[in-house]
């Protein structure tokens, strides 16, 4: 990258460092990576606390959780896991290409594929929600299952899938922003730390789902 490009890309406070622009820019990138990882560690505790709620409740009511887990739609669940894992692949390729400033067209296509797969996940999830509501899997007076603790499973199910969907929605927004800016400015994506930051966040949202899959869709399948 030429010197003027780097200078334009430098932000406060890295632009004030007493080094040349390239070193300052490298530190800015390292700072962005470090900052997002600290945030991801925070998110790990966020979802860790949710998973702990699930674990403790499931340990107390294994049969009810097995019965409730059988009611979720494993086809939708598995399909959505595959969709998200694939979106992580396209996101990773986009991020690694942008990091080296190569293949702008491919980077854009990979980002577009990532956002599209994220939207596909939400669509599938919407179909699943419709089916869940039709099967009376919403906790309350008209709940389908007789065991009371099965309602705890679905209380968790609705909460955690909605929280995950909100995270994914934010991710789609961030990726769409990169696409829009990358389309307008040919130099935007090149070596831009924002691509890596978005990618790391995206992967975390994917990993949360990787754990939700055995929690929500696999209990009670063998019984």
């Amino acid at each position, binding site marked *: 990258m030429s010197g003027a490009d780097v200078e334009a890309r430098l932000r*406060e406070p890295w632009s004030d460092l007493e080094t040349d622009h390239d070193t300052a820019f490298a530190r800015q990138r390292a700072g962005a990576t470090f900052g997002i990882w600290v945030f991801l560690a925070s998110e790990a505790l966020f979802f860790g606390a949710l998973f702990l*709620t699930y674990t403790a409740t499931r340990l107390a009511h294994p049969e009810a959780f097995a019965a409730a887990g059988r009611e979720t739609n494993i086809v939708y669940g598995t399909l959505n896991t595959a969709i998200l894992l694939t979106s992580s692949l396209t996101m990773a390729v986009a991020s690694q290409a942008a990091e080296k400033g190569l293949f702008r067209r491919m980077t854009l296509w990979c980002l577009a594929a990532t956002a599209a797969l994220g939207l596909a996940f939400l669509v599938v999830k919407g179909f699943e929600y419709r089916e869940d509501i039709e099967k009376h899997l919403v906790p309350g007076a008209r709940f389908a299952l007789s065991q009371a603790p099965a309602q*705890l499973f679905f209380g968790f199910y609705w909460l955690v899938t909605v929280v995950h969907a909100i995270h994914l929605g934010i991710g789609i927004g961030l990726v769409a922003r990169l696409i829009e800016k990358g389309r307008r400015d040919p130099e935007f994506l090149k070596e831009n730390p924002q691509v890596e930051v978005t990618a790391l966040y995206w992967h975390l949202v994917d990993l949360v789902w990787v754990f939700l899959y055995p929690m929500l869709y696999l209990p009670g399948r063998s019984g």
Partner: protein
Amino acid sequence: MSTTASPTGLADPDELDLGLPVSYLADGHSVRSWLLTTDHKRIAILYAVTITVFFFIGGAAATLVRLELATPEADLLRADTYNKLFTLHGVVMVWFFLIPSIPNTLGNFLVPLMIGAREVAFPKLNLISWYLNLGGGLLAVAALILGGVDTGWTFYVPYSTVFSNTWVSLTVLGVFTTGFSSIATGVNFIGTIHLLRAPGMTWFRLPLFVWAMYTTSLMFVLATPVLAVTLLLVFAERTFGLPIFDPARGGDPILFQHLFWFYSHPAVYIMVLPAMGVVSELITCFARRKVFGYTFMVYALVAIAVIGFFTWGHHMFTSGMSPYAALVFSFLSFVVAVPSAIKVFNWTGTLYRGQVGFESPMLYALGFVGLFTLGGLTGLFLASIPIDVHVQDTYFVVAHFHYIMVGASVSAYFGGLHFWWPKITGRTYPETWARFAAILMFFGFNLTFFPQFIAGYLGMPRRYHVYPPEFQIWNVLSSAGAAVLAVAYLMPLGYLTWSLLFGERAKNNPWDASGLEWRTTSPPPRQNFFGAPRVQGGPYNYHPEGVAPVHDQPRLPSQGSLT
């Protein structure tokens, strides 16, 4: 703030006009230049304004509570109003004053200055953090005042989710929002301290205040998300009827307490570690001593921050938790007292053979050491299960945590505010008034809270607006102390405001302190320093290694100019 718009930007009229840049306060006067600023110093001021407002809102609630408790009968407030007032007091003081108090005001202002940086690592995130704090605070305070919440600041389930008919959901949402402000600040400080230290500023040359901010940030980042989830679960159960903790359907309310205290116990250290950092700066400066055992002070901070995450169960001894888990938590709670004790020993060790001055910040700092020791030792009473079972939910507990959170943390906040006031505003305040307020605060505090230890030990339960007449003597003492304390808190509001308008221009280094933040003008320019700071030695360079300070020598730091 326009008072500082001197033509040169220099605070000290005795200094020559060297054509230096204007101070951060003079660098733009529009409302926009404040509300959209990314300057960490201005954001610190924004925080200071909001937490001051929240402090007096929470204080007003406490005043009404103390007035009601002056007599055993209910003569001022009805039962549910009383419940709403102590909840308002708790929620506002914990989340909107104490948690952001030192980190977001003094921390925001000083961390970059102390490490020789121009800015925090993520300046925009810093501003977003303030807006999240403000938004969450307004939401919660609006809910607490317009509707009221009667659950206490702990929001225990199932009362908060199933039974309470008050504005729990909105309040919880406000606290949830503010949590993200804490996380943003934590990310910012960790990034800043890791990546933006000036050349030569190695980890073991960092001032203890910076170490305190670093360890506090660790807790911000790792504990706050768990609070966010806990409150989200309460919100979901209340608003959308999703059963999570509902015992009627097999849920476990004790699980809520685990999640809540996984945050809220470290939250106590979020309040007290920054206070420890402030006090370390004050005691070294006013004793003219290097801090005794610097490395152990650092290890103690880190140890408290880490072990502090292992002790939350001591809030739950009587909750129905497993007695085996209670034993483990009790033991771990005793362990965390060790690094705290090391710090107290080292502060007193720093005073030993020091050339101790009794300026107002030092009075606050000395008050901190005494009150923190008393609060910490009564904490050990409460960490041992038999005593805890006896005094659980009594005023003994109330007195204990006020000694830590008010006696220690608020004293240190006021101490730090007075110490760095000349640097932040470029003005000096009337020292006599400040000393008087510091002493009054110490006595008022003890008069308010020491009787509560006795009343609590005798069995007076907390959170009731009526009580048996035999406790009245202790409550009258306590309410009288609260009146003294209120005066002591209002006084700084008066004379510090006065100093903004009429105070003398402050020198760049009025205390002859050794930190990097004093190596720039008061108030500093937007860029913090003139030129790039390079650090040559360790902190607290008040006298040569291994030698006590000579008495009655002029109070000058031996460290040379760093810029």
